[in-house]
């Protein structure tokens, strides 16, 4: 599908950048004229993926998080969030709702469940020791209704 617009971001995996990442994405996605609900869905999904990279991918320290977002034809937005951190040994298990390796009771283990519920498609690629990339895709309905 033809790429109509794209942007790339990279930033250190500091938790203060969670808000920056979702705000930047929402500014980029504004061109698609999403509804408030669609925008909230995208921001939440991006926030989950970036938080995963910070909390899990770079659990040992600070690394770089890369975001590559594209707007395709037919109001499709594709956002890839990538880290070069520790990687996930068992992606299927990591994506199970409530599975978490975080501190007891403070991480809900719902990050991937939220991404899957709020986006049309979620693809996770990971290699231990190499890093993880999460690709989020969504078709924005508001303009399609014109």
């Amino acid at each position, binding site marked *: 599908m033809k790429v109509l617009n794209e942007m790339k971001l990279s930033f250190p995996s500091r938790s203060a950048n*969670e*808000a920056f990442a979702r705000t930047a994405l929402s500014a980029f996605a504004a061109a698609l004229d999403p509804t408030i*609900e669609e925008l909230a869905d995208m921001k*939440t999904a991006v*926030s989950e993926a970036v938080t995963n990279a*910070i909390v899990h991918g770079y659990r040992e320290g600070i690394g770089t998080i890369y975001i590559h977002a594209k707007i395709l034809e037919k109001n499709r937005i594709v956002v890839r969030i990538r880290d070069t951190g520790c990687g996930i040994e068992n992606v299927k298990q990591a994506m199970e709702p409530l599975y978490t390796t975080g501190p007891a009771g*403070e991480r809900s283990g*719902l*990050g991937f469940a939220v991404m899957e519920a709020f986006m049309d498609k979620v693809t996770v690629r990971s290699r231990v020791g190499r890093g993880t990339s999460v690709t989020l895709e969504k078709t924005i309905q508001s303009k399609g209704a014109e």
Partner: protein
Amino acid sequence: MPLKLHAEKNRVTACLMGEIDHHGAGSLREEIDEMLKRVRPDILVLDFRDVTFMDSSGIGLVMGRYRLIREWDGAVEIHNPPPSIKKVMRLAGLDRIASIHSSPPKSGTNQEKMEARV
């Protein structure tokens, strides 16, 4: 992350504000827990009226406080979650551990304050 906390009788109310994510959840957790452990209330009210964004870190925040207050058989109430936040809560099944209350906007909303200034 701004937070207003107050205790009355057997109830602690935490008015959450702004965006709740992993970055801000830690300090919220500490402040609320400090109050909970001191007061040991029957009910913790988490008011989401002024929350503009929440991801699953907010779910972890509610679940963790629920776990704490259960130590002395207390309960958690969630008040006034905006629609986008209710969506995350519903997905997580938070209604199984906390009652969710929506009420009409209280007096003194921004709209009314603006009108009062005019």
